[in-house]
């Protein structure tokens, strides 16, 4: 878990520089460009998470105990926020992902984007990521 929190704290530190909303969003958009893009073969209805406002595709890969995510969105701000989530969660242990408390979202002022009523697909995506963590974890337990 501490690895996830370390990354969260890093992000909070990075975002401290911005006192203007627009600068903050420019940075988020930049982050979006670093997003490990989902393979085109996964950009289908099966992997889509539909929001009313924007669409998100998400794919998860298990490597040992660790879960790696790739994703994409048709809106670039959504994409930037996904990039933050992936930076924090991807490559971490399934059990840590399942349990993670993502306090950084609130701290850097993005809470609204993950509100249940925002319907941009992000909250559903986050739930999906945690679900992958949970499933992978329980599989791991069964295997072990």
């Amino acid at each position, binding site marked *: 878990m501490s690895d996830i929190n370390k990354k969260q704290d890093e992000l909070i530190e990075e975002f401290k520089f911005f006192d203007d909303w627009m600068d903050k969003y420019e940075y988020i958009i930049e982050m979006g460009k670093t997003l490990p893009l989902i393979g085109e073969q996964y950009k289908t209805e099966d992997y889509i998470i539909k929001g*009313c*406002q924007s669409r998100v595709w998400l794919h998860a890969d298990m490597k040992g105990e660790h879960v790696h995510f790739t994703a994409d969105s048709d809106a670039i701000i959504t994409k930037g926020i996904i990039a933050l989530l992936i930076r924090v969660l991807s490559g971490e242990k399934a059990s840590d992902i399942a349990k993670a408390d993502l306090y950084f979202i609130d701290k850097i002022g993005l809470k*609204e984007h993950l*509100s*249940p*009523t*925002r*319907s*941009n697909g992000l909250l559903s995506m986050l739930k999906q990521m945690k679900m992958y963590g949970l499933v992978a974890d329980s599989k791991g337990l069964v295997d072990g």
Partner: protein
Amino acid sequence: MEAFDVDTTSMKNRIGERRKDFPILQRQMNGKPLVFLDSAASSQKPDVVTSAIKSYYDKTHANVHRGVYQLSQEATDAFEKSRATIQSFINAKHSHEVIFVRGCTEGINLVASSYGDAFIREGDEVIITTLEHHSNIVPWQMVCEKKGANLKVVHVDEAGEIDLDDYKSKLSSKVKMVAVNHISNTLGTINPVKQMIDMAHELDIPVLVDGAQATPHMKIDVQALDADFYVFSGHKMYGPTGIGVLYGKEHWLNKMPPYHGGGEMIKTVTFEKTTYNELPFKFEAGTPNIADSIGLAAAVDYIGEIGLDVISEHENDLLNYGTDLLSSIEGMRFIGTAKAKAGVISFLVGDIHPYDIGTLLDKQGIAVRTGHHCTQPLMDHYGIPGTVRASFGLYNNMEDLDRLYEALTRAVNILS
């Protein structure tokens, strides 16, 4: 024991102070201070409720859902918070089991139409009772007529209590719905709905409870009751007009077809095929009554602060005091004398017409309701054209009843 008495007294004293929360109670009527005894028709509103509505419009209003801007987000959060407030008020399992409607009447019509479409067939039966409000009779008559089903009416005795033997004899596999009043608006009878639900569930029959009169007076726990549907109106429980709630168990609501078509209730629309949104939105087509849902939540918070147990006890005291007082008037005939009664006194005096009594009470500043109270079949059952009804809210006090007694005495003198 003594400590308990003291505590009760202090609660009662506190509830006495609540009267000043209701600006309208300062009014004069025909030169006399208003005594408002018609809360069963519609209660008055405390300032916190009307201020919550105004404050919502002055600070937060925007259309809800799907807005990306902050104001819309705030409005949506406020609206959904109201839903959560209602959920915990009635102890629903899920917030999406709380559907906002205009009021009790719309809620019952929604169920009669949507559930009826899916589950009621020719030759089926729907059970109601003699003491139902028109709003819990006519929608079922309409669906029965449409579907060729039959309406069965459970008897009520002279005291105004539902005949459970008759109810039992009417339950059968043909019955597709039982719809019953929780508290009679005309008689005040508190009906044994828990028992009736259990009896219906033995045959897997769902039960709709008309809670219009119950939510302002007693704590409702829809899970403990195991009610399949529970419906009530905001305006009878210190909340605004134009808002009410249909609670339905998730599995029923999921099985029912949508009611209204329009914005909010859809997932995707093409001219060929429309797919519906999930609960609760499936049943909330169009822009909801956002401001009044917030007003209703404020009313629930207000009630919660005082405590429904305190309110019940207070109204019970009023009922006992008022019944004693009025029974000394010659020719007094109470309509509705059930053992379990809420804060409603319906009566006739000799053969004086209720309208005459109502008019002369009004001239003395006393507001009571007269007539059939939207329960004509119940009036037919008693063979009377109507009653005079005094009904209580948390703001009433013993003085109100003293005033009623005096005014009634004078009216009866003139009229007989």
